[in-house]
């Protein structure tokens, strides 16, 4: 299968995602420049972390207007798999491919450290190899990572089982001490309604090799591979023509 890693000006985890897919997971991968208007031949797109457009104005607010985003919207609407990590998650929120918004961390400071997250839903292409309640040790690195959504969105997320990861303690307990940024309802990652678009603040690509002291993140990429290989129909390797503006 083939992954695509989207490169926005200011992306800085693009190489890291690329390396993990190619050298650790062992799948094909290409970079996709943000000025591309078509995305073709990919089974899964990754919007990597970084500071697209310097995070000026608001995280992800300018990147959503990059030409490639129209094609990604259309890819997603047709069921294509999309993962937004950190800044990628923020871009997906700004593009309305995922609901909610990000606020500054509770501490108002950048936080880079390992966090524990609990798998809340394993019926997604990104968590299919996980157990419900499994705790993954994966680093976070952000200043705007405090997830927020209003009550209506929150209700929808819960009803549709869209909360995929929650911050937790080592033992999987939910508590404010183990919620590093103050996210609403401990949310670390969510999916869209149809479950093919995932956004998460922790960086699974930074926890995919034992030398980096955790391999827990690899399961996200491996779940995708397993899902795509089990049901080739998921694959959207045919052309995705540019489509109309995402609403």
């Amino acid at each position, binding site marked *: 299968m083939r992954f695509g890693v989207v490169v926005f*000006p*200011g992306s*800085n*985890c693009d*190489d*890291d995602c690329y*390396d*993990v897919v190619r050298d650790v997971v062992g799948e094909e991968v290409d970079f996709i420049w943000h000025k591309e208007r078509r995305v073709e031949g990919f089974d899964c797109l990754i919007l990597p*972390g*970084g*500071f697209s*457009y*310097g*995070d*000026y104005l608001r995280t992800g607010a300018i990147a959503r207007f990059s030409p490639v985003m129209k094609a990604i919207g259309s890819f997603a609407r047709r069921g294509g798999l999309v993962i937004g990590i950190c800044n990628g998650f923020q871009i997906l929120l700004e593009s309305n491919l995922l609901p909610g918004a990000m606020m500054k961390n509770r*501490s108002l*400071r*950048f*936080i*880079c*450290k*390992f966090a524990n997250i609990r798998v809340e839903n394993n019926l997604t292409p990104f968590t299919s190899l996980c157990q419900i309640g499994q705790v993954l040790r994966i*680093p976070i*690195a952000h*200043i705007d990572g405090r997830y927020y959504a209003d009550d209506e969105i929150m209700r929808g997320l819960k009803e549709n089982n869209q909360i995929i990861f929650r911050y937790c303690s080592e033992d999987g307990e939910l508590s404010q001490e183990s919620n590093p940024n103050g996210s609403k309802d401990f949310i670390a990652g969510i999916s869209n309604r149809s479950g093919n678009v995932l956004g998460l603040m922790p*960086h699974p*690509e*930074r926890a*995919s*090799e034992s*030398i*980096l002291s955790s391999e827990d993140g690899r399961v996200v990429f491996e779940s995708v591979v397993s899902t795509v290989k089990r049901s080739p129909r998921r694959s959207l390797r045919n052309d995705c023509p540019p489509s109309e503006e995402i609403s």
Partner: protein
Amino acid sequence: MKEPGKITPDLVKAHGLTEEEYEKIKDTLGREPNFTELGIFSVMWSEHCSYKSSKPLLRLFPTSGKNILIKAGEENAGVVDIGDGLCVVMKMESHNHPSAVEPFQGASTGVGGILRDIFTMGARPIALLDSLRFGPLDNGRNRYLLSSVVGGIAAYGNCMGIPTVGGEICFDETYEGNPLVNVMCVGVARRNSLVRARATGARNPVFYVGADTGRDGLGGASFASRELTEELDKDRPAVQIGDPFKEKLLLEACLELLNTGAVVGMQDMGAAGLTCSTSETASRGHSGMRVDLSLVPRREEGMIPYEVMLSESQERMLVIVTRGKEREARRVFDKWDLHAVPIGEVTGDEYLTVLDDAGGVAQVPARFLTEGAPVYTREERKPEYLRKIKDVSISTIPEPQDYDGVLKVLVASPSICSKRWVYEQYDHMVRTDTVLRPGADAALIRIKGTQKAIALSCDGNGRYCFLDPYEGGKIAVAEAARNVVCVGAEPIAITNCLNFGNPTKPHVFWQFRRCVEGMADACRILNTPVTGGNVSFYNENPKGAIDPTPVVGMLGLVEKMSFSCTPWFKREGDLIVLLGECTEEIGGSEYLGLIHGLKMGPIPRVDLEKERAVQNTCLELIRARLVSSSHDCSEGGLAVALAECCMSDSGMGSGAVVELEASPEILKIRMDALLFGETQSRILVSCRPRNLPRIERLARQNKVACWRLGVVRGNRLTVRRIKRRVLDVSLEELEENWGKGLSGGDD
């Protein structure tokens, strides 16, 4: 700004040029310089750019070695061969004065500047480190400086996606009003794709790339070359504003540009901006350069040539392109949405010629600008204070009653405590190469695609250098080397940043000489040549010069990454062993300072041959996988080192039971000196009991003392001497004190 009609002696003086210097300029030009030229000379001949006071002493440093590809001073950064066709490019630089005035932007642009020095050489930056010094944290201004400087470093480094993997922070009254912000960057390049900062080939076009030019940072190099005054705010316009996003684009564009083969040379527009980049590239290339200022993109109206030449607006570069390949270069800049305009060309006449709409505005021999500044042999005098503070007799110092309390005070002191509050604000994991994160003795960064890794550490101790600059200089190098050894790397080269007071004060210059001599001797014996560095003079506050603070950035190499070592005890039942000798050395210690309020010598002596033997032994033990942990004994002495081994950053600490029953010589050492004295050349390791005989044998072969101290056990740190309990603290208490030192409870 309006151009003054006439060059008066006052104007010359205001530009920091002496009468003698001005006469030399007139002699060489054969005329009076005009206002623009005066500005050009004032920045190029400033201490910051010309090294006119430090040059003769910097020659004392050993600069060659089998791994050194580009020597100190030849280019903007030194280059070290690490094999496999790869090399490491590294440099450290100060941004002290800007950070004193506007800490967030000052620190931020310090990071930006050092990054450009690395990537303009064709290397991809892979790590940043920072060495920071502030006044005590009970002063609100210092707390503000700390949080703004850390915030500024984080904002720039995190956005660029270069991990900040280590450094050091220290607090002392001497830095009140004059904090030190030293930033180190390390990059990796293929040997054959290094770029020189040289302008060669007459008629090759000169491109200006990046941000537009404004009035910010005007005369920053001269600002850095004088003492800060009490009217700090007046100097605020001399501080630049950073745009890390623009720099990220520059970084990617520059590295992509190398693949086009269109680049002749590149240089960052850092200190002294357009002036320095044009004259230095021309001078190094034995060429001249003609630039037309009317082509320089500007963001402010009405700038006169003087301002354009002296602006230090950030995120700008000068790129010399092969004639005929302009289109390839443009394609790359366009891709990254960067503004790139040809502003002139390389010439064969060895002159820097500056034009604008109206015609010529400056014409000066390029080499005269870069090499012509007079070199000074400053007056030196051994300072008076040394006589008063040299001797400290331990018998006059009361022995503490409560050793538990002393240890808790030491581990909670801001200079020793956990630096988590700082490094968690830095993205230290991006690039997925950080094998050992901040908190270990040195950072360890793997080099993807090879089996190699590099270890990095920053070290310097101003108090030691104040009390004994020669020994202090030696210790800075020795300790930095010991740190990289403790993670399993072989020390191979250093860079440095030398922070001192006003060099025209004889005692300051004496301190400078002695520090450099000490560092040079240590570098020679430890076989770590100096690849370059930076000198920052005029670090003074109203009370006088800061403590002499040379900071060493050490590069260590792991050839085959199969095993690395961390400081933390790993396993219940492991034995704790000290490599190196204990002696009664209490002078200059954190203990004396914090507990007894004394800043007195003599500081610990380093026997460099012994140091090398201890380091080699530790390295052999790590490579043979005989030890489970290794940690340098430094500030706070043996007791603090033991405590640090007990407290792991991941929260899984292990206790230790230590029995100080050893030779009669050790029993002669007073307890506080034994526990808190900072004797050098000591490394604390732990091992499985079955490995002890081999460790002892190896140490014996290398003539290194090896003392079995105790065992890893339980959840308390307990130290006994002849069955008497001297120290007994629970891990919980240690961690609580150690963890809270910096955060000040604000989280």
